[in-house]
C-alpha cells in the first residue's frame, strides 16, 4: 500500500508541468531540491470537477496551496469552498453519491484519490478542525491522546508530554492544566474548539484544514483562535474556510474566492481585498452580495 511520502521526498510527477498549474510560482526552482516555502505548492489541485449525485459542486478548480502559509477560501454559501476543503482529506468519501469526475489533487506530488492510497494515512497527515466543536465525550487528556493511541503510542510519559505540548500549542494549557481528567464537554465553546485544534496538532499533521472554525464562537473566543492560527502558521500549512471576510483578511496569506462552484480569483490576501482583479470578487469583498 502506497502512502503519502513525507515532506522530504517531494519529487514532482514525471509528466511535464501544465502551464496553468502554478499560478503562484514567480521564479523557477529546481524540482529535485526540497522546496522551501516559496517553491512548488504542497497541494496541487488540477481541473477538479466534483459531483454530489447529479449536481456539480465544483467546476474546473485549479489551485496550488503553499506550505506553511495560511490559505483562506471565501465565498457565499453553497459556493463549494467547504466541499473543496473536504476533498483534501477525502472526508467526502463518507457521503454517499459523491465522486470526482475529472481532475486530480496531489499532495507532495502523490494523487490522493488513487485506489492504492490509504485514506487513514492521508488523514493522519491532513488534520481537520470542524465548524462546530466536536470533542469526544471523554476527558480532555483522552481527547488529545485519541489519535496517538490509534497510532499505537502507549508510553504514558510520552503521551503526557504530547498532551502538554499540544495544549500549549493551542493556547489552552494554562486554562485546563489542572483538570485534564475532567470531561471535555464541560469546557466553554471556545475552549472546546481550541481543544479540537490541540487534538488535531497532537498527531503532527503537515496540513490542517479548518472548516469555519469560528462560526459558532463569540468575538473573544474568535480572537483567541485567530491568534492561534497566526502561531501555528510557522509549523503547519493551514487551509481555512471562512464566511467572515475580516477574518480572511486578518489571518491569511493567500485567499481564494469561489462562486457557484468556480474559482473566481486566487491571489495574495492583500491584493484580493485591496485590488481585486475580478469585478465579482470586488463586489463580494466590498459586501455587495453574499
Amino acid at each position: 500500500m502506497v502512502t503519502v511520502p513525507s515532506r522530504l521526498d517531494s519529487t514532482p510527477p514525471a509528466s511535464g508541468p501544465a502551464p496553468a498549474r502554478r499560478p503562484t510560482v514567480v521564479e523557477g526552482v529546481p524540482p529535485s531540491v526540497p522546496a522551501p516555502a516559496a517553491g512548488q505548492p504542497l497541494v496541487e489541485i488540477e481541473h477538479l470537477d466534483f459531483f454530489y449525485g447529479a449536481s456539480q459542486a465544483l467546476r474546473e478548480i485549479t489551485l496550488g496551496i503553499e506550505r506553511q502559509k495560511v490559505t483562506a477560501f471565501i465565498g457565499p454559501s453553497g459556493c463549494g469552498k467547504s466541499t473543496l476543503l473536504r476533498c483534501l482529506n477525502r472526508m467526502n468519501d463518507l457521503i454517499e453519491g459523491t465522486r470526482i469526475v475529472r481532475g486530480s489533487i496531489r499532495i507532495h506530488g502523490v494523487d490522493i484519490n488513487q485506489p492504492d492510497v490509504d485514506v487513514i494515512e492521508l488523514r493522519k497527515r491532513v488534520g481537520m478542525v470542524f465548524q462546530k466543536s466536536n470533542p469526544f465525550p471523554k476527558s480532555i487528556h483522552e481527547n488529545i491522546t485519541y489519535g496517538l493511541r490509534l497510532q499505537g503510542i502507549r508510553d504514558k510519559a510520552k503521551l503526557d508530554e504530547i498532551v502538554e505540548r499540544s495544549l500549549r500549542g493551542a493556547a489552552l494549557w494554562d486554562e485546563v492544566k489542572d483538570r485534564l481528567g475532567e470531561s471535555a464537554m464541560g469546557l466553554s465553546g471556545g475552549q472546546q474548539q481550541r481543544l479540537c485544534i490541540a487534538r488535531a496538532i497532537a498527531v503532527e499533521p503537515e496540513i490542517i484544514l479548518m472548516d469555519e472554525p469560528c462560526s459558532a464562537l463569540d468575538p473573544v473566543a474568535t480572537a483567541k483562535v485567530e491568534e492561534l492560527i497566526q502561531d501555528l502558521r510557522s509549523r503547519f500549512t493551514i487551509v481555512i474556510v471562512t464566511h467572515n471576510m475580516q477574518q480572511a483578511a486578518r489571518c491569511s496569506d493567500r485567499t481564494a474566492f469561489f462562486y457557484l462552484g468556480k474559482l473566481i480569483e486566487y491571489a495574495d490576501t492583500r491584493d484580493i481585498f485591496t485590488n481585486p482583479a475580478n469585478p465579482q470578487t470586488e463586489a463580494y469583498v466590498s459586501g455587495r452580495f453574499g
Partner: protein
Amino acid sequence: MSQLSSSASAPTPQFPIHKRRLRFLGLTVEDCIKSFFGGNALISVVVLGLITFFLVKEGAGFLGQNRQNLAIYRLAGLEFVDHLRRQSEDHTALTRYLSDLRLRTLNQWTGPGGLTLEAANARLAEFDDYAARFGDAADPLRGMVSDLSEVATAIKTKFLVNEDKKEERRQLLAEGKVAEAGAVVITAVDFPAELRPLRDSLPAYREANREFSTRLGALLAAAPRLPEPELQRRMDRFAELGRTYVATFPGIERDLAVWDHARPVSAAEAFTAFIFGRQWLTASFWQDWYGVVPLLTGSFLVALVALSLAVPLGVGAAVYVNQIASQREQRFIKPGIEFISAFPSVVLGFFGIAVLGQALRAMSQLPWLSWVPGFPYSERLNILTAGCLLALIAVPTIFTLAEDALNNVPRALKEASLALGASRLQTTIRIIVPASLSGIISAVLLGLGRVVGETMVVLLCAGNRIAIPDFTQGLGFIVEPVHTMTGIIAQEMGEVVRGSIHYRALFMVGLVLFILSLTINYAAQHIVRRYRISIG
C-alpha cells in the same frame, strides 16, 4: 363611555380581531378537542392507578392469611414433626449418596477389561451389607415421624373442621336462622391436650436418638474401604458428611425441647416466608408453602439465558446495521429483525415445543458435544429451550433501541475520529459504542423487562417444575426445567378459589413481578435521560 359601547356593538367594527366562537353545550370546539385528548390521558392514568391499587389490595390480604396458615402449622404440631422429618430426610440423603457411590464403583469395576457384572456385584457384597445397615439405622426415627405425622394431621383436620363450622354458624346467624346456628356444634380444640402425644414422645425420642447416634458413629468408624483412591475419597467424604449429620442431633433435640405451639407468628415472619420461602407447595395434605424463591429463580435464570443470547445478537446487529451495512442491507435487515416481534408468543412457544426443544435435545445427545455442561439431557422443556425462544423475543426490542442509541451519536464525533486517522472499526469501537453505551444499556434493560414479563413462551417451554435448580453441578443447571412467576400465575389463576390464600399468593407473585418490571423500566429511563444530557 356611551360612545365606546356603541362602537363595540356595531356589526362591523373597524378592527375585527375579536374571537368568534362556535359554542356547543356551552363549550367551544377547542374545549371539546382539549377535553377529548385530556380524557384519554386521564383514563390511562386512572386505569394504571386502579390496577396498582387492585394488585396491592388483593396481595396485601395474603399476609394475614399466610400468617394464619403458619399459625396453624405451629399450633397443630406440624412444625414439631417437621423437625424430626428433616432429620429423617437428611439421613435419606446420606443413603442416596451411598447408592450413588455404589453405582460409580460398579461402573468403574465393570469398565473395559474389568470384572463381569456378577463378579463386581459379589465384590460389593460387603459394601451392600454396610449400606443396608446404615439405611436401617434410621428405622425407629422413621416410625416415629410417621406416627407423629398422623397425630398432627388429626389435630389440624379437627381445627379446620371447627373453623368451617364457625363459618357456617356465622353465615346462619347472618341469615337470621338462630336455631340452626345453635345446632352447629363447635368444640374448641384444646391444643395443649391434643399435643400431649407429641410432647410425651420427647423422652423416647431422646433415648432413640442416643442409640441412633451411637449406631451411626460405629457405622461411620467401620466404613468399608474401596481400592481406588478416587472412590475412597468419596467414601471419606461420606464419613465426613455422616459425622456432620450426627453433630446436628443435639441441635434438633434443643429445638424440640423449646418448641412452643402457642408462640405467635409475626407478620414479618409471614412476609419472609413468602419472599425467602424456598418451596411453592399448594393443595398439599401436609402443609402449603408459598415461597416465591423457586419462581423468582426460574424467571431470573430464563431471563439470564435469554439475555446472554439476545444482547450479543441484538447489539451486534444494531452496530452492523448502523455502522457497517450498506443502504441496501439496511433496508433488508431492519424490517427483518423487527418482523420477529410480529410473531404471537404462543406461536413461538409452540415452535419451541415442536422444533427447538427436540432439536436441542437431539443435539445434546451427540457424543462430541458431551463436554458441554449438562449435556446430554432428556428433559425437552427446560431453561435453555425457553431462554433461546425468549432471546428471539428480546432481540427486536434490543436491536431497535440500540440502533436508535447508535444513531443518536452526533455525526460530528464520527467525522472527528475519522479525521484523526481512525479506521471505521476503531471509530465504532472507541467512539460510537462508548458514546451510546447508556442507550445500549437501557435497551438491554428494556429487553430484560420484556423477557421477565413474557408468559406464553415460558409457560409452554420452561418445563414447569417448581423447584430451585441444582447449582452444585456447575452450569448444568441450564438444562433443568423450572417454573416462572408469569407462568405460575397463568397456570394456576384459573383454578384457585377466589379469595383463598392461594389466590392471594398469586397476586403477591404478580406484585413482585410488577415491582420488578417497574424498577427495570425506571432504571432504563433514568439511564436514557442521563445519556441525553451527556451527549448534549
